[in-house]
């Protein structure tokens, strides 16, 4: 099949970018979207043009390294699918495909389709963990966790941190990403001791770096792991409760 590509090219964070257009005519249905870009790059190199920079690593939809806007949709048209798992059979012969980097104030472009998502790491560093120094853990089966709770925590923990939720959000909010981690840890018995401080620190850090959520719901639709927007409500509830709890702690101390 043939495709007509319109791809964002940008030398680095300091320069302006622009679209460039390319035609590819040896595309097979079996190829993944990124393999199609590989073929384009090989073609560019042999024609003496610099290949398009884009990120990917596992190419199995789990590392969260890939991610581009395809015809305006984060990770493209297939629901619950990361860019690397999208296959060309989802496009028709002669398709026009526009490819852009994640568009968000919080994700500066490194080059072409590659962006800097390190603000997401800052949110985890603010409290997205359970403090358990190596060697201090009790025997694993001493902490039974009801299967339903464990499953719900897992659904949230499935987040791959790709940033599609931010890219899809008209406000550039990272609420789904943050909520997913908070829910994973706050649902589990092991996460209780730090529950209230965690949610406050993570939410505040999130607000420092990202836009605010006004419930568009685009994030859930774009998420390659189909993480539910319900977790955002969970996070908001915990955040409100935390204000109260933390005040109580302060009061007790005072």
């Amino acid at each position, binding site marked *: 099949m043939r495709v007509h590509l319109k791809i964002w090219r940008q030398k680095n964070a300091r320069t302006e970018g622009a679209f460039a257009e390319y035609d590819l005519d040896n595309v097979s249905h079996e190829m993944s979207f*990124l393999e199609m870009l590989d073929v384009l790059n090989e073609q560019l190199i042999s024609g003496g043009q*610099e290949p398009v920079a884009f990120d990917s690593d596992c190419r*199995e939809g789990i590392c969260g390294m890939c991610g581009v806007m395809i015809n305006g949709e984060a990770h493209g048209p297939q629901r619950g699918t990361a860019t690397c798992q999208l296959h060309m059979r989802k496009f028709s012969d002669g398709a026009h495909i526009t490819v852009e980097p994640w568009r968000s104030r919080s994700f500066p472009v490194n080059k072409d389709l590659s962006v800097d998502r390190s603000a997401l790491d800052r949110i985890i560093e603010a409290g997205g963990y359970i403090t358990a120094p190596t060697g201090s853990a009790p025997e*694993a089966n001493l902490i039974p966790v009801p299967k339903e709770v464990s499953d719900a925590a897992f659904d949230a923990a499935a987040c791959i941190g790709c940033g599609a939720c931010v890219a899809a959000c008209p406000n550039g909010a990272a609420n789904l990403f943050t909520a997913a981690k908070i829910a994973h840890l706050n649902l589990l018995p092991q*996460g209780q001791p730090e529950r209230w401080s965690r949610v406050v620190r993570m939410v505040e850090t999130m607000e420092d770096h990202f836009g605010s959520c006004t419930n568009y719901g685009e994030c859930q639709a774009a998420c390659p792991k189909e993480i539910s927007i319900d977790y955002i409500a969970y996070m908001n509830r915990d955040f409100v409760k935390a204000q109260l709890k933390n005040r109580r702690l302060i009061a007790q101390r005072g």
Partner: protein
Amino acid sequence: MTTETVHQTISGNGIGQNGSSSRLNARIPAGPIESKWDTHKFNMKLVAPHNRRRFEIIIIGTGLAGAAAAATLGEAGYNVKTFCYQDSPRRAHSIAAQGGINAAKNYRNDGDSVMRLFYDTIKGGDYRSREGNVYRLAQESVNIIDQCVAQGVPFAREYGGLLDNRSFGGAQVSRTFYARGQTGQQLLLGAYQALARQIALGTVQSYPRHELLDVIVHEGRAVGVVVRNMITGEIASHTAHAVVLATGGYGNVFYLSTNAKGCNVTAIWRAHKRGAFMANPCFTQIHPTCIPASDEFQSKLTLMSESLRNDGRIWVPLDPTDSRSPDRIPEPERDYYLERIYPAFGNLVPRDVASRAAKRMVDGGRGVGPLKNGVYLDFSDATARLGRNVIEERYGNLFEMYERITGENPYYTPMRIYPASHYTMGGLWVDYNLMSTVPGLFVAGEANFSDHGANRLGASALMQGLADGYFVLPYTLADFLAGNLGQKVVPVDHPAVKKVEAEARDRTKQLLSINGTKSPEWYHRALGKIVWDYCGMGRDAQGLQKALSEIPALREDFYRDLRVLGDGDEMNQSLEKAGRVADFIEFAELMCRDALQREESCGGHFRTEHQTEDNEAKRDDDNYAFVAAWEWQGQGKTQTLHKEVLDFEYVHPTQRSYK
């Protein structure tokens, strides 16, 4: 256990005895196997808490091994720097592990124990690993599960709230802990989160999108690294009291593999060229259940978890010319070859055995699919027996993944699978303390050669990475550092540092200045074909000789006709790729030389000249019960082979049988 070493040099294609050398000391503690590690832990020196902040440690790699080590050492109070090539430490290749992690908890009450996990691992590795290391690994396995649960890793649970287990190839007990089909992801996120906490506390400085270009060895010790900032292109040095390489495996030497695209041999190859011995490079693992390649543009292969073999039945048509769709081939005309040949283990034989059997079927013309390059993995019996719901609960996400890639629905059409490069048992040689032959240079996780012999059992790599990172390195590094208290880190402007840095710059310039016609990708593909054809699932002397003449020719062509566009002082993915391919080419030669040297079959190393009557690997314990450790001798010269002889006191080597 005594470790005697014999020093040999290669002459022509044979090996000449050259007397003995003591360059390899595995430092296995004396005493009964059950107490070696405890005794050693007691005997090792400690660094007092207030002295720890005086030490700088560099850790390259933030996979399970690197992240676990960095989090633990940071927590302990050392100054740690971590580097990884992805944009976040959370994305290391460990994230892709699906099936699970082993631990001798014996929660199923089915006869498991540390001794049994030890025994299974030694046997599974076809008697080419060290008893001392493997026993320690089995011991630490139980602590890993405790640690991970405390961190909030959402392992699968029973309705009663306790942890669930499943079984895996090569074992007759259920000792595998899992988190749906995303065990590696959840374990890595646990380690990454512990690391993130240390980053926030300032004990660890994280350098994502930084690639190691060289290791700095000064006065016989590893004192630092040269790295390239992959966004700005800046090449800079970092120095420390010790360097840890936790950079993963080299499975991408085959080009097509289940590894992430960026997995590379560069870090360990650079260290090798600076004096670290490379051990058993020919021990590579081919995983039996991957999705076969569909066309020449394929960029990587996708693994379908081995757990599928619990319920799927593997078969090919009896008649090679049978072109009917699988559901129209009646039962008597199907060959369930694993069940036929290995009745005791059936579809759950170890990976190497399953892979070679599939290759024999495909080579014999009985492959299935449009390219006749696969075998069926069929769930229709299991679905009839257990119901679709159960199958969906167990494998739903894998089935979806399969359908996304192939466009076929495994609930109705059997999956097609074929073996692919997956894991590398070989790696830098390390002693019991995980230190390489270069003092101060430690190696952890898949990057070292230590625990899996000639074949790794499923769910044991995650176990090893975490054991190394959480429970071994924090002790053995302290022991090394304790002897260096008061010693200053070599300054980054020291001439010895500047020299290595300048060499790294020159190499980068060289790659950019060839201005030929072929892309790095082209060379990688060409290399992969040679290595897969001659040093893949089946190897013989003639093919290996051929590879040994083709690889240097490819290398020559690479340096004559490579094309890397763009500049060095900016983000340049072609340049990164070119550097990795250059190292893979050199490494591949050693891998083939190692395979040629090893005139036996064992585990994943199958020399077709050495097989039993029923096509199983035939070991030669009298002559090859050793670790082959290669010493770099300079560009254009053949490496020297050192042998670490393996003693088996507790597990007596026998012909592995899974019948």
